[in-house]
């Protein structure tokens, strides 16, 4: 099966083309084709996961072109990290595809949605299967494209169109730095193959500041794609897209690509002097984790809460990787995929029922939408980090690594954990408890095609964490499966686990105090902590900062260029046009008098000559005879004088 791993991205890719061209006429208007393709890929991924768990590895490469004397290769590789990613993308993806059948029901561009989803799945799978930077970058750009297409799926809404543009441009900034990093590697090492680059690092031919620079540049791409500071501004706006999109791309998979990238190229980060690159990664991750979590407290849009939560959790993953917690970071990626997708889909179910995103208008939905409530509760507990749910094991491991590596980062992470529990339960209490605040909505439970995926994801969120738990006898299975040799993790500490749980519990309690039992009203909090509240509501003024420092100068430059274009370039073009018109007038005169004159002259000559010569035809035989006689005389004279 490993030999046909290339089928995994190919099946959704074919589905994309089929749906694009045949769309409406396919069964289920393309949905079944998409689900079928990804489902098949999922089965293949499961088989491959099994094979890799028993030690299977595989790689296949093919030279595509040569640049000068350096070959450019394409190929794929299957190892534990890839197998885990394949599993996550296909399983979560399939569930979200099924959910979309219900959520997008009746949309006029229904088939196209599934086409884009299939293309995204193919691109993401290509990305994780890549064994060199070239194919990785290709997949990277493709997922960016799909993100753009899907955020702006309802492009009639100006907010959606703007958001898709913002997402693309912001991630492009990150991609630019990543590309510089790739170029640096290519010209230093001579190959883009991961194996070759890592070998160069180990032999020392790629080392020192150059290595740090390359690693940080590549991390730049991850910063963009995974919405870390300072390129995080696009992810909240991306919530304009349909909820399945938010779940799949902006929670579970695409944004995790940045984390995957750091994990895949960990050799570069690890070997940079004094782990400098890793420190950069960890601090950016840690700061992002805390900052985003705090902004999540004051959001009223249910999807925005989850968006900032995603940014924050991605920060945790980066933090984990940065403190030499390779396994922890990747583990958190996997668990987060499941419970964040679950949270988003449940939110989608709520939005579908309430026809609004505003949690202030909701309330008391627990009685009306029990399945959604329970599943969202599971997701919330997983996110907050309550055992035995998935998020606990991964987050706990990250905090443990941070504690042993860098105390500052630990405090950041711990504070973030408290805030995380607080905001997610704020959201849950607002949405499901109390009584319905809106007077116009008539909510009801969502159809089974939507609730069944929720249940499945909830089940996963419940148990998936256990593969990373320290079992007696077998130990930490996930750690043994996915690990980095040099980064040996810290052993499980029961007291530490209790500490993490306590932090999470404290957060939930605080949220309950304010929002469930209303012992302290949120209005009071807002008044007391007014300056802090202002900062949070304005999202630390990041968007305003960018508007002034980046957007305005760029727009000004564009306007100057436009003026130049209109006056100088268009002017030059028009001037040329005027010159040619003038020339053509000259030619016309020439043509009219000289050329036409010549032609007319020929005609006039013929006519004149004819007019004169016709008089020869007198019709009188005697005239002709005279000419004959004269001719005879001439011939005779010629004959005589010869």
């Amino acid at each position, binding site marked *: 099966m490993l030999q046909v791993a290339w089928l995994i991205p190919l099946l959704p890719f074919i589905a994309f083309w089929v749906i694009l061209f045949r769309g409406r006429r396919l069964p289920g208007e393309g949905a079944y084709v998409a689900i079928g393709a990804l489902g098949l890929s999922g089965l293949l991924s499961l088989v491959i996961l099994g094979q890799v768990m028993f030690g299977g590895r595989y790689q296949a490469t093919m030279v595509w072109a040569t640049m000068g004397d350096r070959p450019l290769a394409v190929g794929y590789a299957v190892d534990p990290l890839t197998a885990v990613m394949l599993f996550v993308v296909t399983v979560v993806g399939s569930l979200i595809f099924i959910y979309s059948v219900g959520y997008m029901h009746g949309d006029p561009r229904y088939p196209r949605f599934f086409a884009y989803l299939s293309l995204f799945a193919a691109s993401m799978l290509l990305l994780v299967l890549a064994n060199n930077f070239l194919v990785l970058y290709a997949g990277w750009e493709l997922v960016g494209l799909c993100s753009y297409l899907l955020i702006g799926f309802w492009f009639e809404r100006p907010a959606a169109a703007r958001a898709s543009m913002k997402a693309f441009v912001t991630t492009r900034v990150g991609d630019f730095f990543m590309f510089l990093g790739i170029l640096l590697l290519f010209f230093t090492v001579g190959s883009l193959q991961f194996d070759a680059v890592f070998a160069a690092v180990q032999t020392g031919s790629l080392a020192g500041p150059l290595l740090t620079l390359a690693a940080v540049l590549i991390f730049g791409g991850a910063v963009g794609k995974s919405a870390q500071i300072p390129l995080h501004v696009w992810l909240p706006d991306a919530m304009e897209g349909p909820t399945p999109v938010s779940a799949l791309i902006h929670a579970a998979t695409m944004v995790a690509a940045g984390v995957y990238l750091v994990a895949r190229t960990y050799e570069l980060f690890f070997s940079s002097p004094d782990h400098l690159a890793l420190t950069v990664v960890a601090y950016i991750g840690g700061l992002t984790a805390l900052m985003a979590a705090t902004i999540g407290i004051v959001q009223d849009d249910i999807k925005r809460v989850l968006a900032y939560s995603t940014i924050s959790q991605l920060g945790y993953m980066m933090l984990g990787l940065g403190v030499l917690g390779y396994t922890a970071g990747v583990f958190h990626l996997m668990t987060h995929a499941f419970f964040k997708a679950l949270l988003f889909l449940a939110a989608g179910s709520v939005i579908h029922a309430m026809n609004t995103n505003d949690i202030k208008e909701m309330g008391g939905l627990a009685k009306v939408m029990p399945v959604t409530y329970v599943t969202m509760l599971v997701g919330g507990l997983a996110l907050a980090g309550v055992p035995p749910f998935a998020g606990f094991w991964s987050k706990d491991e990250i905090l443990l690594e941070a504690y042993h590596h860098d105390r500052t980062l630990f405090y950041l992470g711990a504070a973030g954990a408290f805030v995380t529990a607080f905001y997610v339960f704020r959201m849950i209490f607002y949405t499901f408890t109390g009584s319905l605040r809106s007077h116009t909505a008539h909510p009801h439970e969502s159809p089974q095609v939507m609730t069944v995926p929720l249940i499945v994801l909830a089940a996963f969120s419940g148990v998936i964490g256990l593969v990373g738990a320290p079992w007696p006898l077998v130990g930490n299975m996930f750690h043994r499966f996915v690990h980095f040799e040099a980064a040996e993790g810290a052993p499980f500490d029961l007291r530490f686990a209790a500490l993490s749980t306590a932090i999470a519990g404290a957060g939930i309690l605080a949220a309950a105090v304010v929002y469930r039992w209303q012992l302290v009203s949120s209005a009071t909090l807002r008044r007391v902590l007014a300056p802090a509240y202002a900062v949070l509501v304005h999202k630390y003024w990041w968007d305003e900062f960018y508007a002034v420092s980046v957007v305005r100068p760029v727009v000004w430059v564009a306007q100057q260029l436009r003026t130049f274009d209109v006056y100088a370039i268009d002017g030059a073009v028009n001037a040329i046009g005027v010159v040619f018109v003038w020339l053509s007038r000259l030619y016309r005169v020439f043509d009219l008098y000289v050329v036409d004159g010549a032609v007319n002259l020929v005609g006039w000559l013929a006519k004149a000559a004819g007019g004169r010569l016709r008089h020869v035809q007198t019709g009188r035989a*005697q*005239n002709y005879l*005279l000419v004959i*006689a*004269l001719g*005879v*005389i001439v011939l*005779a*004279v010629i004959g*005589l004088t010869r």
Partner: protein
Amino acid sequence: MGELAAFMILSLVTLIPAVVVVTSSNIVRAALSLVPTFLGVTGLYVMLQAEFVAGIQVLIYAGAITVLILFVIMLTEGGTGVRTRQLNDQVPLGAMAAVWLAFVLIVIFTRTGWPTAAGVLPAYNVVAVGNAFLSDYVLIFEVTSVVLLVSLVGAIVIARRED
């Protein structure tokens, strides 16, 4: 000496009426002037010891053809032609052409060395001519007969009235 005088007289008898033929404004006078021309030619034939040809010349030319011409003159315009102009506008050019041609021909004739052979014509050249017609030139003889027949019929056909 006598031969020369005869030649000169006969030449003048031939040429001067010929001038009248071609220049006279009176068509009848012109037609009648043909007669002395033909007779002069007859004389020349006699001088050239072609008596049979001379006889035929008188019979056909001076006799038949002249009369035919006179008849046609009568049947067409007749005497009314006297009052109309007889010479067209080509006179200067035509005269010039004729003079030049004469000049050229005379130059040719006098310049060329003719291979004159002194021989004797058969005494009774009628017999000789007759023999020639019926032996060496019998084809021409027969064809000429046919032509005569054809022209006879043709002339009648052409000239008859269409009623």
